[in-house]
């Protein structure tokens, strides 16, 4: 036993992702989207709220690369800033809803007595469409980003709870959970140290996929006028503002819509690629 034989290193998740064309493209896209949103104040050509009434509804040209909207605001600048709002709303809903959902899921899997009650509660939440939550919350708190985030968080809770419960139940059946109990570990510690790390891949995959959906839903709510309010730049709201000029200046609606499409597509593709890379059933 002097020379130990090293087990082959597991390839990193990043490398597994890059093996797949869709994975590579989506990863590059997602990184680009995030960078663009982060750097918006520095790369934006002008102020997104500055109106120029002499240059309204201009199609894309040399000065305004993506044209101007009905009030002569630069669509490129509004896209860059709108991306931040859209992404922030999506991420906030995903984090709030995801964390609560994960806690519920872990508790349901760990405390089997509570399982039935908790999951029936989740089923009740699941039976309401997210748009309906948005409508109800906008009616209560008034339209705005907060209402959208709360609505989308609530809509995310049951989904995350089910995903986490499912993968935690599998882990619960493994001996190391029993072994950890047998050395006298507290429940909270056991869930945090042993259960959660082994469910992380499922959580990551679901979060990535869900982020795309949440962004789409958030834009839809803003489009309906329940989310971001004018003049705030937000992709869904921008698409809504171009509605009246659809026949004379289609780019005002089309460009933000394409933006939403690309973001959702990128996150969905990345989620799929992540699932392929992380799913142990596909890994040999």
């Amino acid at each position, binding site marked *: 036993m002097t020379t130990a034989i090293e087990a082959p290193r597991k390839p990193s998740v990043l490398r597994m992702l890059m093996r797949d064309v869709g994975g590579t493209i989506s990863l590059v896209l997602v990184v680009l989207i995030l960078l663009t949103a982060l750097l918006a104040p520095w790369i934006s050509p002008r102020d997104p709220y500055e109106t120029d009434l002499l240059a309204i509804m201009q199609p894309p040209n040399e000065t305004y690369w993506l044209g101007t909207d009905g009030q002569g605001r630069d669509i490129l600048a509004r896209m860059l800033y709108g991306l931040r709002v859209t992404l922030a709303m999506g991420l906030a809903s995903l984090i709030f809803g995801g964390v609560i959902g994960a806690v519920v899921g872990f508790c349901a899997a760990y405390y089997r007595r509570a399982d039935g009650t908790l999951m029936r509660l989740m089923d009740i939440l699941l039976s309401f469409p997210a748009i309906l939550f948005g409508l109800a919350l906008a009616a209560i708190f008034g339209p705005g980003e907060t209402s959208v985030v709360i609505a989308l968080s609530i809509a995310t809770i049951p989904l995350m709870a089910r995903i986490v419960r499912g993968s935690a139940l599998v882990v619960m059946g493994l*001996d190391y959970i029993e*072994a950890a109990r*047998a050395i*006298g*570990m*507290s429940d909270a510690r056991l869930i945090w140290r042993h259960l959660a790390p082994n469910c992380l891949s499922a959580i990551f995959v679901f979060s990535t996929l869900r982020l795309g959906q949440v962004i789409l839903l958030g834009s839809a709510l803003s489009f309906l006028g329940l989310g971001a309010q004018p003049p705030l730049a937000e992709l869904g709201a921008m698409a809504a503002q171009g509605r009246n000029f659809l026949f004379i200046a289609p780019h005002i609606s089309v460009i933000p819509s394409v933006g939403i499409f690309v973001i959702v597509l990128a996150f969905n593709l990345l989620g799929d690629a992540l699932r392929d890379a992380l799913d142990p059933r596909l890994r040999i």
Partner: protein
Amino acid sequence: MTPLLEIEGLRTVFRTSAGEVPAVDGVSLSVERGKTLGIVGESGCGKSVLSLSIMRLVAHPGRIAAGSVQLEGKDLTTLSPSAMRDLRGRDIAMIFQEPMTSLNPVHTVGFQVTEGVRAHEPGLSAAELRARGIEALRRVRIPSPERRFDEYPHQLSGGMRQRVMIAMALAGQPKLLIADEPTTALDVTVQAQILDLLRELQAETGMAVILITHDLGVVAEMADDVAVMYAGKVVEHTDARRLFEDPQHPYTLGLLGSIPRLDEEREDLLAIRGTVPPPFALPPGCRFAPRCPFAINACNEAQPPLLPIAEGHGAACIRAPVEKALAA
């Protein structure tokens, strides 16, 4: 001197759609300090549930319905959950059958070995923890423990992992170690090494061991006392030598007859007919009666209690001692 562990009339039931079914049904056993008690039986006889009951780790929908488990006079069945948690790993530790799944793949060996120490003695520095962990690995004869400390379970072989499991269990210096089929999943040569290790560690620390197994060879090698379990009950209880020389319960005889021997003319193994009755369809009388070659009508009427048939030798059979039954 009172025994270290004394189990009295322990009954563990599981709630199912068919009502409550007993997995462990009125088991009374005791373990002396520094001794090894072997618990033998087929799959499904309740031996694993018995060990989980001692640790109070029986998962919902199972529960301990009756009886007591006394560790040094303290009744574990009535302790508060936090007191019980405190006691696990410190007074009683456990090792499991499957070393491949008993270690968490996302943490290093060192993290897991020191986990019990961290739980029971908070406030140790990282360097102290590391020293304790390496010492624990060294005690279970793991070569180059300093390097192994930082490795992940998938980098270790099965026998090595079982050593890590033992190191984990012993890190808290328990008075009682419950080993649930510790060698079943290992190669024969590795089995012998692990059993040797357990024996050496037992001699070093003076801990008592409950060894759960279906392997009579392991029992012969390791145990001082043996309890044979069948369908949730102890059917024979005696010391290891007497069990092999003078088995009294027909089930024990059957088990011994099922072992192939190398040193005798080959003849058909005396396999026990039938299978263990499921716990929701137990026969009314002696639970072994339907499979027993010695069964008489009276066997189906009442459950035979575990009665002493000699000093330090109990059997739950109305036909025991068997010699008499055979002569009749």
